[in-house]
């Protein structure tokens, strides 16, 4: 089961229209679930939506959202306004996502799955130099202006993610995928973590644990996704402390080795290297099939519950869409029950 709604969206005659129309998006999500024989209606992975909604609250128009970064400390009153938990969602993408959830929930027998960017990953998109700020925090230089701003952005990010999750639950989501691709060794130094820095705890685990508590209270399951480069202690924390129903990891991990870090009741998902499916040179179909067979065999041997899938979203790429689709089909063919 790939996270592949984007591929099917681009089979629509007008993908960009469907993207912003709830029922049309719902139909695409349903088609993706039926195409790959899964009860999970996996949404379109659009990790820009929470930033767009947050910046709308700040008066920044949508077309400026992608490139906007906070660069000075935010006044307490402004911060409070941006951390409102009750603000409505404004933008077309978020509204369509909610409508699609309702469509799936009321018109199909599929499990509606919501999705949001994680608070740490959203924080990194609110800053021009997130690695620098987090690195300074990790080295103990917590008095630096950039660290203070990062902490403020993390507060805003957590609030934005909570608003998004609450809204999606209200529209029928019964599972929520939190995507934290930035919570990895590119942004968080294992050297600092091993030296005892609380940076991973403060910037990643604490906000995500709070969000998990909300989901538990709302009766909504957590699917936790992180396709970045990780160290074992990160996998352990995600699996054991967040305790998602499904843990989705990137292709840098060997899931059959990670199984020892993951409780028996957490399903491992992934992790074929779909980011390189666009290239027949780098990843021919035969190699996809070989890796799928190897993954299945190793996971069977270790006995841990596993869903064969993609390491992340499988994006439509102009000029490579057929190559990508062929490899997804090959992966599914190998994984099909005999």
């Amino acid at each position, binding site marked *: 089961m790939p996270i592949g709604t984007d591929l099917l969206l681009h089979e629509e005659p007008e993908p960009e229209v469907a993207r912003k129309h709830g029922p049309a998006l719902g139909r695409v999500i349903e088609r993706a679930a039926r195409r790959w024989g899964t009860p999970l209606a996996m949404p379109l992975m659009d990790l820009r939506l929470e930033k767009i909604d947050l910046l709308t609250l700040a008066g920044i128009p949508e077309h400026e959202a992608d490139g906007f970064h906070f660069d000075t400390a935010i006044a307490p009153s402004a911060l409070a306004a941006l951390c409102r938990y009750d603000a409505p969602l404004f933008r077309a993408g978020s509204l369509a996502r909610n409508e699609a959830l309702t469509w799936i929930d009321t018109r199909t027998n599929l499990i509606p799955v919501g999705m949001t960017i994680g608070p740490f990953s959203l924080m990194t998109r609110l800053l021009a130099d997130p690695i620098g700020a987090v*690195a300074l925090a990790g080295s103990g230089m917590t008095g630096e202006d950039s660290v203070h701003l990062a902490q403020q952005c993390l507060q805003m990010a957590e609030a934005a993610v909570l608003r998004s999750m609450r809204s999606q639950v209200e529209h029928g989501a019964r599972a929520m995928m939190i995507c934290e691709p930035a919570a990895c060794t590119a942004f968080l130094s294992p050297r600092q973590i091993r030296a005892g820095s609380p940076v991973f705890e403060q910037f990643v685990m604490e906000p995500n644990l709070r969000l998990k508590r909300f989901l538990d209270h709302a009766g909504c399951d957590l699917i936790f996704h992180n396709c970045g480069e990780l160290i074992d202690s990160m996998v352990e924390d995600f699996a054991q402390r967040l305790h998602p129903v499904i843990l989705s990891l990137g292709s840098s991990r060997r899931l059959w080795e990670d199984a020892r870090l993951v409780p028996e009741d957490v399903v491992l998902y992934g992790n074929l290297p779909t*980011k390189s499916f666009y*290239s027949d040179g780098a990843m021919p179909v035969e190699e996809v099939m070989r890796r799928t067979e190897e993954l299945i065999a190793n996971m069977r041997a270790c006995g841990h519950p596993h869903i064969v899938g993609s390491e992340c979203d499988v994006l439509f790429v102009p000029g490579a869409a057929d190559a990508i689709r062929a490899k997804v089909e090959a992966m599914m063919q190998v994984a099909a029950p005999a």
Partner: protein
Amino acid sequence: MVSKDLYDAVLNGEAQKATAATKQALEAGAAPMQLISDTMIPAMAEVGRLYESGEYFVPELLLAGRAMKSAMELLRPLLAASGDRPNTRVVIGTVKGDLHDIGKNLVASMLEGGGFEVIDLGADVAPERFVAAVAERQPQVVCLSSLLTVTMPCMKTTIEALTVAGLRNQVKVLIGGAPVTSQYAKEIGADGYTDNASGAVGLVRSVVSAA
């Protein structure tokens, strides 16, 4: 080594100490170019070695780059006044349609730390801007960054634009970014590829020396 304090400050990613050590070294009569070549470049080379060996990670690279940059802020005006300049000029940018710049910034930082002159065009850079920068600044190397598979084709169109402009043979084009592979580099006619910021320094050196 001209200044152990500066070497250690860069190695440990301590920007304020790097600034202080640079001031001290200059006051003691050290020549700016010598500080770069005998202290800062070796420090960044050691940073790169520690990264390759898995002891340092991206945050350490970035902090070291910032320390190097803070020292360079003192040295750059002195170099300009004396007419000294790095031998190799690199133009770098994230391609059109892609706003991700963290990786590109890290590479730019490492390249500057490696003693190269870096002209950073930023993110979402159209092929025409790369062409204009090459025509005007005459770099030896152009580095293209892309973090998304959907924007990777812009690397190819940028190379094609350089060819159409008659500038392709004047530069080496290197590419990098999360979805990029060496195979893709060959397919689009790039001269090289790296999958990490630290490797970019060695790659630039090797393509320039082979030219």
